[in-house]
C-alpha cells in the first residue's frame, strides 16, 4: 500500500504539469494563510465623495499659491526698493515713484491671491441662480 502511494507520488513529481499545479496550489494556500484579516462588512468610513475631494485639492493648491505669493511679496518689495535706491543714487529719482507703483501692484496682487476663495465663492454664489434645474430634453 505504502509502496503504491510512493510510486504514484514519484510519478506525479516526474510530471512537470502536475508539479507546477502543486507548487501553485501551495503558493495560493500560503498567500491565503498569511493574508488573513477580519472582513469589514459595515458602512464605509464617512467621506464627502468626489466633490469634497475636488474642493480640498483645490484648497490645497490655493494655499500653496498664497504661500508663493507671500514669498513674491517679500522679494518684490526688496528688489523694487533696491532698484529705486540705485536709480536715486545714479541721478534719476523718478524711479522711486515707479517703485511705489510697483509695490502697490504687488500688494494688490497679494491681496487678490489671499482673497481668492472669497472672490470665487462670491462669483459662484452669484451665478448659482442661473443653474439649469430642468430635465434634459432628448429628440
Amino acid at each position, binding site marked *: 500500500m505504502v509502496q503504491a502511494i510512493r510510486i504514484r507520488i514519484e510519478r506525479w513529481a516526474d510530471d512537470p504539469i502536475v508539479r507546477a499545479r502543486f507548487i501553485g496550489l501551495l503558493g495560493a494556500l500560503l498567500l491565503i494563510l498569511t493574508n488573513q484579516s477580519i472582513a469589514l462588512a459595515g458602512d464605509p468610513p464617512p467621506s464627502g465623495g468626489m466633490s469634497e475631494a475636488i474642493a480640498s485639492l483645490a484648497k490645497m493648491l490655493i494655499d500653496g499659491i498664497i504661500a508663493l505669493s507671500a514669498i*513674491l511679496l517679500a522679494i518684490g518689495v526688496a528688489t523694487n526698493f533696491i532698484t529705486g535706491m540705485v536709480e536715486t543714487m545714479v541721478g534719476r529719482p523718478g524711479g522711486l515713484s515707479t517703485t511705489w507703483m510697483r509695490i502697490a501692484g504687488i500688494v494688490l496682487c497679494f491681496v487678490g491671491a489671499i482673497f481668492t476663495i472669497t472672490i470665487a465663492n462670491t462669483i459662484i454664489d452669484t451665478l448659482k441662480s442661473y443653474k439649469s434645474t*430642468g430635465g434634459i430634453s432628448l429628440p
Partner: protein
Amino acid sequence: MIRQTMCMVSLAVFDPLGELRGVVAELLTLVIQIVAVLLALAIATGFLEAQVSYVVGAPSLLSALWVKIGAVIICLVIALTAVSISNTLVGILF
C-alpha cells in the same frame, strides 16, 4: 413596497432613457463643480502671475488678468446653463 416597485417598473417602461438622464445629470454636476474649482484656481494663478510680472518689471500682465477672469466666469456661466442651452438647441432643431 410592491406599489413603489410597480411605479419604478412603470417609470422604467415609460422612460427607458431615465437612467441615462440621471447619469448625464450627475456628470454635469461634476463638470460644474470642476469648472467652479477651475475658476478659483484661475483667480489664484492669475494674481500670482500678475505679481510675478510686477516683480520682474512688466506690470502690463495685470490687465490680462481681468480678461482671463472674465473668460473663466463666462465659461462657468455656460457650464451652469448647459442643460438650458442643450434643451433650447434640441427644441429648435427637432
